[in-house]
């Protein structure tokens, strides 16, 4: 086998693997990407029920209600709009009313956001970066959120994985 043939074999093989990878990536991009929305964006865009997305905003003070067997409901607000969220499971350590939260799940037929994951992932200002950016963009950013951040801000993460089907899987 000459040098040229060897090179062609290697280039051919590389192209085949690259094509395979590109096909896999394009296929995955179609349905495994989760978009981030705020309640305002949900209200404006009319997200269809069943489509997964990430909802970010502030937990509306006074809206948290605990039901039986770890079921909780609360509202996520961003100043313009509110969206009710239902979740079953243990809320993360850093979950607080009036503070930032990101939930992942989908809307049901009644317009309630059924979350299967709740993240309270933020730094000392109790504001996830995604939520802070969205609030800033809408002009709802209050300076007192940022005031505490004058020192070096360090995040803490806590994640809760819920299980909507039942207690034992």
């Amino acid at each position, binding site marked *: 086998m000459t040098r040229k043939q060897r090179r062609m074999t*290697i280039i051919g093989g590389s192209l085949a693997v690259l094509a395979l990878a590109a096909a896999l990536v394009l296929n995955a*991009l179609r349905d495994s*990407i989760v978009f981030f929305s705020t309640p305002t964006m949900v209200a404006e865009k009319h997200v269809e029920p069943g489509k997964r997305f990430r909802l970010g905003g502030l937990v509306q003070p006074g809206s948290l209600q605990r039901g039986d067997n*770890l079921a909780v409901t609360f509202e996520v607000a961003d100043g313009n709009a509110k969206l009710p969220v239902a979740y079953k499971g243990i809320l993360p350590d850093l979950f607080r009313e009036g503070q930032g939260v990101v939930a992942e799940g989908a809307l049901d037929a009644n317009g309630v956001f059924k979350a299967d994951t709740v993240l309270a992932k933020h730094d000392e200002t109790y504001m996830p970066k995604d939520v802070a950016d969205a609030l800033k963009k809408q002009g709802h950013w209050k300076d007192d959120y940022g005031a505490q951040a004058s020192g070096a801000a360090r995040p803490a*993460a806590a994640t809760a994985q819920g299980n909507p089907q039942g207690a*034992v899987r």
Partner: protein
Amino acid sequence: MIAESGHYALVLALGLALIQSIVPLIGARLRDAALMNVARSTALAQLLFVGVSFTALVMLHVNSDFSVANVYENSHSMKPLLYKITGVWGNHEGSMLLWVSILALFGGLVAGFGNNLPLSLRAHVLAVQAWIASAFYLFILVTSNPFLRIVNPPIEGRDLNPVLQDIGLAVHPPMLYLGYVGFSISFSFAIAALMEGRIDAAWARWVRPWTLVAWIFLTLGIAMGSYWAYYELGWGGWWFWDPVENASLMPWLAGTALLHSALVMEKRNALKVWTILLSILTFSLSLLGTFLVRSGVITSVHAFATDPTRGVFILLILCLFIGGSLSLFAGRATSLKQGGLFAPISREGALVLNNLLLTVACAVVLFGTLYPLAMEMLADFKMSVGAPFYNLTFAPLFALLLLAVPFGPMLAWKRGDLLGVTQRLLAAGVAGLVVVAIVWAWVRGGSALAPLAIGLGVFVIAGAVTDLAERTGLVRLPFATVLHRARGLPRSAWGTAFAHAGLGVALIGIVCETTWNSEYIATMKQNEVAHVAGYDLKLDGLFQRQGPNYREMIAEFNVSRDGEAIRVMTPSKRSFTTRGSSTTEAALLTHGASQLYVSLGDATAEGAIAVRIYHKPLVLLIWWGPVLMAFGGVLSLSDRRLRVGAPKPARARQRLQPAE
């Protein structure tokens, strides 16, 4: 005084690094040995001064000197001594100081133990090291000085993030940095080779041990970080495809490819250009990782600070080094001589396939990490790329790679016999298929994917064993001969087998944990019993306890199986008053390679508590796999050829000179 000396030592280190960046190169142009040898002294002196600087910061933390901003923000006088020390790198400034300390350590090692390198190569390598070091010293001194004083010192510090107050912080970041930064050596060697325009098999022989050391630490560092997240975050996840995790996985993938291509270069003098490119890419990915973590473009547990000037500075360093090295590569690569020929079906061909799949898998991870960032910047919408994406892309590519792994070491160099190798691997293949059938029958239906993946894992392990059996002549030859041959086998052959088997072990662990993980989440009252995977967990009660800088609520569970008491498990929830935050300390019960995992949620008003109980079958294999891989790496590192391979300079003459 300590803070000022630390600061001053760091400035001196910068000065030394600047000298080391220029003088050895002038020496190499003029062929002046004295000037070239400056690199050796400056590299060692740099190590000394950075060491002084790092020690100073450790002392400040240990003494709880809250007049220093870094200590005030990350320490507390009540914090246990271990966390006072580890807290040094539990923050942005300190972790960058650890980064440059390790860089200086590697530079010092090349200077101290690189006596068998040609003088000009060593001068070049150390000069390139000094460029990297200068950039990062400047970065620390300009944007993230850990020695800044506070004008009115507070009495008490703000304490370290509770999640980081764990033994994991003592091990994970240093290991990871030893890996990340270790790849700077192969980078410097690659740039030196391009500058000198000379590269040969001996070059690969020098680079391989350094790459191997970095790879071993990176492997252990990633595994350690994964286990830490598993037990500390409280919900049993061990890999999140978080951008920061990807940032450590990418150099690992590229570094693994580099290890294999350097092998081809060393043994067969082929793939030179590719090996050089991989060395550059591997370290570039390490730098990219540093950028992603340190710049605050992403949110994660690991991202300490979001100061825009830091991000811009690191981005500049990134562009300078990656852009510069790739341009140098583009300009010089063609001048490197091509190496030996080989047929597509051969050991070289298999290693090329390995490289291809590893780099493409790495590219997929890179895409998944940067795509959301690019979309946010260009199209102005946010999204996340998570596990589903990687399951559809990374997993198939890696499955393909694993399928090919057993074939590689059994193919001959230059021209291999695929049919013969397939015949010899028949037993391993049959073992894999039998396992698929058994697992399939065991779970009766369900997804076919899990049994197939476990079969693949078994095939990889059996393939590694087959390779050893073939080499020693097990089964064919009398036992005494086999023993003799096993002893005579190069350590690197054993290393290969262990590392490859480790892949199979990890795969089996990953598949079992994700497929047959059982979980129980509920609120429990006293004396209530939870049944999970054959275990009965009775909640005996809740207790309060005062720790050094936290209060904790402990739940006591009596675990029994079939009426037989096994152990008491005590998960707890700690609340740290200084930061007003809490952490969840999970309790683990290990049974073989499987684990029972209990963590606590909030207590309700009626004295009940939310609990999360998981049974994770064979979960420990996920981390035993990487440990096996690292052990294989260590065996390989101790191979005779890496110790005595490179030529020795004539030093004996100097020693014989009279003393006066």
